[in-house]
């Protein structure tokens, strides 16, 4: 306040300040009410936005969920691009399997062999081994000659 001011300037400044402060202190109730509402409106917007730090907190809170969602999305997209190839492979494999089955059904001997092989995998064919042993003994003893 003392920038090159003489005492008369300082006194004038003091009186004007007192006058202005009186006018601010004696504002009408209607004006004071509107100022209060304006202040509350400004602060309400700040609170509604959660403040700058709260905004950052919500961003951090949703970060893991966002990362998981992004990972799932990437996985789906990657699988989507590779899906035509496995489908073709599965189709060709199914076609080949069904062709083998038809050929197996058409060939009766091959079907019986396959059934025998399936049975051999689980049960021992004692009848066959008994016959084979008997046939070998008969050959050794000259039966049928």
């Amino acid at each position, binding site marked *: 306040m003392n920038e090159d001011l003489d005492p008369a300037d300082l006194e004038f400044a003091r009186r004007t300040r007192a006058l202005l402060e009186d006018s601010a202190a004696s504002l009408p109730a209607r004006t004071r009410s509107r100022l209060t509402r304006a202040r509350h409106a400004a602060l309400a917007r700040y609170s509604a936005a959660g403040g700058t730090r*709260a905004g950052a907190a919500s961003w951090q809170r949703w970060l893991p969920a966002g990362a998981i969602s992004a990972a799932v999305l990437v996985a789906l997209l990657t699988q989507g691009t590779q899906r035509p190839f496995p489908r073709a492979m599965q189709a060709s494999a199914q076609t080949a399997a069904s062709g083998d089955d038809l050929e197996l059904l058409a060939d009766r001997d091959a079907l019986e062999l396959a059934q025998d092989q399936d049975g051999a995998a689980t049960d021992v064919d004692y009848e066959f081994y008994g016959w084979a042993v008997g046939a070998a003994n008969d050959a050794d003893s000259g039966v049928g000659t």
Partner: protein
Amino acid sequence: MNAFATLLPGANSPFRPRNTALQESTQQETRSMENFLAAVERKAFRIAQIALRHEDDALDAVQDAMLRLVKNYARRPSAEWPPLFYRILENCVRDVQRRRTVRARVLSWLPWGSADDEEFADPLEQAPDPAPQPPAQAQTAETMQALEVALAALPPRQRQAFLLRNFAGLDVASTAHAMGCSEGSVKTHHFRALRTLRARLGEYWT
């Protein structure tokens, strides 16, 4: 039960303590900002009213300044709020003045424009209070009115420097920050404003 309690959402969340602290911090910021705005709102209104000579426009300017300060500078240290707020307020006052100028130009081209110009000065609001006033109070009101007229007639920079230094209570550095100029310019504007006001209002101070 306790094992299930630990599975509740947020029971062991690493974000929970930080969020609580942040909410408390935000509430503290809101309280600090409310205290600041409550302390300056009346002076801000008077500064805007002296510049705009219109109560509703002054209220709009103050509300706009509050919103801008809260929106953009609430995270700044509270010591920086006064110069920032008064700088924003001056910008809001200029915005209102620009809108007035544009509106006046547009309305001047319209045949009914002169009728709408009357809304700038509501005769009911401008009418003097019919209640009898004590002589001292009437003299104070007359002096205040003369001061307002003299302040409104000042160049904007001089008026701003005078009101920020002499009414808002900012020091030279904060006033320079609020006005966006050097401290030397603040001193020059303030000194010229003071001398001009003294010359115009001398009769009211004798």
